[in-house]
């Protein structure tokens, strides 16, 4: 039997609600961290570092943990990635750094993510401040959307002496890190501490301000030397099936947000829940439903296991949490009088590959059936930011499938003052926090180069001299 079907050792019924929403992985104890750090080979031009989208100097930060210089370790991480605390918890490390670790093949890769979290927690617990605003260069930048992309860009610009203001629609900053990543992956406090760090560096963060409502994009473009747009994506789109407005139908992101900001025992949830979709959001919704106490949670997905967008480790996690999966099943109607009573579905077959290369699902005629349930959670992706797109049209900024079109080397749009990054430009590839952070960095550097000049420190290239051949000198 496949490894991931191994029995569940997590016994929800033996834990309190609060315990079930603690971080899944406990922090590493000092000795554990040092022992693991000592296992790292301290590779030269390390592949883990090349694989990290923000190119954190992983061997160096790990070595510093092993020597007891944990403060220095945290600085090394934050120098490349201001959202190191979130990334250490949410990054799909198997796909990134740990997947590239030289110890991956024969042994066990180094637990890079957990070591990074160890160093980040150390710095946060001691409230260590590493960076401050650079000498003011008199230039003003507005950042729209205070998620990981926006905060990263703002922090990097602030270090370089720009006056930066972040405009954030929500009550709290840090985007999906605050509102969208389930608490047992990342507690809200971690996300808020990260935002606070950026603020304390000297970035102004204005919350409860929606651009397009309270202030217009035009005003910001006019009043600033540059604007960085990092509005992420919107809510879950409609499924366009009958019954979508019944009580008991919920937007998956709203459901997750409740568990992040409300008291856990005040959250309403169904006993038999159908979660529609099979991406990260669906997995998160299904697992929090189980942890809240829901008896039966079904993930309904119209394609098969092989096509599901969730990472394999997420799939395994959901299975261990007791979530069931119904593949090749398409919801066609949410049934019920005034609240959800069931989900009517039709069975599917896989046909020819579609544009995305995945085999497209075809309904099997006459195969309708109804799953009894009292709650339906929609988790079929996120809406594009169409309002922002409309506002940008005036500046000739184009979209790619609803995402803002930029030059990926600089994250600049066709308009010289307007830059963008994060989920709102991720027209292809996986949307992830670490990519959003790197987008912010790329834009910050491009803004500097555009307005001030070449950057002295080309560390990123110097550190990961991955593309050029290196010859040993001939000494005589």
């Amino acid at each position, binding site marked *: 039997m496949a490894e991931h079907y191994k029995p569940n050792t997590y016994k929800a019924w033996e834990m309190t609600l609060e315990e079930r929403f603690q971080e899944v992985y406990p922090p590493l104890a000092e000795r554990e961290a040092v022992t693991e750090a000592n296992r790292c*080979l301290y590779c*030269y031009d390390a592949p883990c570092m090349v694989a990290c989208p923000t190119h954190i100097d992983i061997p160096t930060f790990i070595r510093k943990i092993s020597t007891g210089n944990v403060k220095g370790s945290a600085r090394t991480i934050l120098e490349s990635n201001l959202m190191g605390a979130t990334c250490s918890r949410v990054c799909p490390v198997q796909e990134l750094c740990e997947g590239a670790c*030289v110890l991956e*093949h024969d042994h066990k890769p180094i637990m890079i993510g957990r070591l990074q979290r160890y160093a980040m927690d150390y710095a946060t617990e001691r409230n260590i401040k590493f960076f401050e605003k650079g000498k003011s260069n008199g230039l003003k930048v507005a950042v729209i959307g205070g998620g990981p992309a926006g905060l990263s860009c703002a922090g990097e610009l602030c270090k370089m002496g720009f006056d930066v203001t972040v405009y954030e629609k929500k009550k709290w900053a840090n985007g999906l890190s605050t509102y969208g990543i389930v608490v047992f992956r990342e507690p809200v406090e971690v996300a808020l501490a990260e935002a606070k760090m950026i603020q304390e560096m000297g970035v102004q963060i204005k919350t409860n301000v929606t651009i397009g409502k309270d202030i217009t994009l035009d005003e910001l473009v006019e009043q600033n030397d540059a604007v960085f747009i990092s509005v992420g994506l919107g809510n879950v789109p409609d499924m366009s099936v009958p019954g979508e407005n019944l009580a008991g139908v919920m937007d998956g992101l709203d459901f997750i947000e409740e568990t992040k900001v409300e008291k856990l025992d005040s959250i309403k949830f169904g006993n038999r829940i159908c979660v529609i979709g099979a991406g990260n959001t669906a997995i998160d919704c299904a697992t929090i439903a189980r942890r809240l106490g829901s008896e039966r949670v079904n993930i309904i997905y119209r394609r098969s296991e092989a096509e599901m967008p969730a990472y394999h480790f997420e799939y395994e996690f959901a299975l261990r949490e007791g979530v069931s999966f119904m593949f090749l099943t398409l919801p066609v109607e949410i049934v019920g009088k005034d609240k959800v009573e069931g989900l009517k579905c039709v069975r599917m077959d896989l046909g020819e590959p579609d544009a995305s290369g995945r085999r497209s699902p075809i309904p099997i005629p006459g195969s309708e059936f109804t799953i009894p349930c009292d709650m339906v959670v929609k988790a079929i992706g996120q809406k594009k930011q169409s309002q922002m797109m409309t506002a940008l049209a005036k500046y000739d900024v184009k979209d790619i499938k609803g995402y803002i079109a930029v030059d990926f080397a600089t994250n600049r749009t066709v308009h010289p003052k307007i830059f963008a990054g994060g989920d709102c430009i991720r027209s292809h590839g996986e949307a992830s926090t670490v990519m959003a952070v790197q987008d912010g960095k790329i834009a910050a550097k491009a803004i500097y180069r555009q307005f001030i000049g070449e950057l002295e420190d080309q560390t990123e290239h110097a550190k990961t001299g*991955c593309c050029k051949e290196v*010859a040993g000198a*001939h*000494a005589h």
Partner: protein
Amino acid sequence: MANLEIDFRGIKSPNPFWLASAPPANSAYQVQKAFEQGWGGAVWKTIGAPVLNVCNRYGTIDYKGQKIIGLNNVELISDRPIDLNLKEIAEVKRNFPNHAVVVSVMVESKKETWQETIKRAEETGCDGFELNFGCPHGMSERGMGSAMGQVPEYTCMVTEWVMEAATKPVIVKLTPNITDIVQPARAAVRGGATAISLINTINSIMGVDLDTFELRPNVGGKGGHGGYAGPAVKPIALHLLSAVASDPEVQKAGLAISGMGGIETWQDAVEFMLLGSTSVQVCTAVMHWGFRIVEDMIEGMSNWMDDKGFKSCNDFIGASLPRISNFGDFDLGFQSVAKINHDKCIQCNLCFIACNDAAHQCIDLKDAKLTKEANERLWPVVREVDCVGCALCSTVCPVDDCITMVQIDTGRPHTTWNEIMKSKPEVTQDWHKMEEYRKTANIHVH
């Protein structure tokens, strides 16, 4: 199964594994428990002059998360009354007649005291004596221990006193805290000793606390030098053992040697025996893991002997002695270069950075197209003509048998420094002559 019995110049033992004179051999309870678990012998914790011990006697060095690669102590000889020790030694010997029970002795430097103590100890029925001339702390300040062992004349004198009184074999235990270990070893020979044991512990301070500035071990805020033992001292012990075991005077006198210092496994023990130890002694490893480690030591050694076709320990004791040589006699014509097995290489680039920063800059990182990946990582490739064969890269490589040092022949003459000193002394004194010689000998230094 191979026969592990040894005859240590009259001291018989079911196997070569003895407890060293130290805390694990402190009492009848411990020694009997050790014998039950398989230890072949024990050198009782040193008995002698009255002492008072201090607290926080030990300090250790951990390395990369591994505990105790080295252990230091400021402990003295046995702090139990001598009568009690002698009574328990007799009891152990009665219960274990076939095991080796050796009494370690250290008393003040008076002929009568030594001889009286030896005679009293003989009454226990013990198999022999070990003279502790090595303890480097506490006792040495009182003119005992290493204060004896560091002066060959004293070593010889006390050994003579003991030999007069003893009817059982006498082992002289040497201190490593001396410039030339061969001198006290020869003194033991002159004094008529039956055997030599080495090494006792090495003078050391284990560390300094970065918060309190206190030393380790920390005795109520103060610290001082103590004796260092455990895995970290093994290479030093092997060297001193080889020096003593290959000394012509020691060899001529036919002294047996009991080796110790950092032995933790059967492999360690075999190494000591290959360099001339008949028995081996263990202290720190038992302090760390308990007596139970002996089971693997016995089994491992005997499996190894079976594999090698050795019937008894005598078949291999001293087998590496003929290989002990000196720099002056090394073959200058022996040449090797590093070869990387790219099937095993995990591309950590540690060899590259080591050779580049600390050796001879002859490993390149190259796009060698060894895989089908479009974005292939660069591979380390040795430029063999420039490799000086220092072997650094092969020692840093974390993958077994990935970098091997392969012997090559470039036609260099197979001569030695000593031969050159004789035949062409000018080459060894004048750089110009050396350069000329190198040209004729096909030696290129980058």
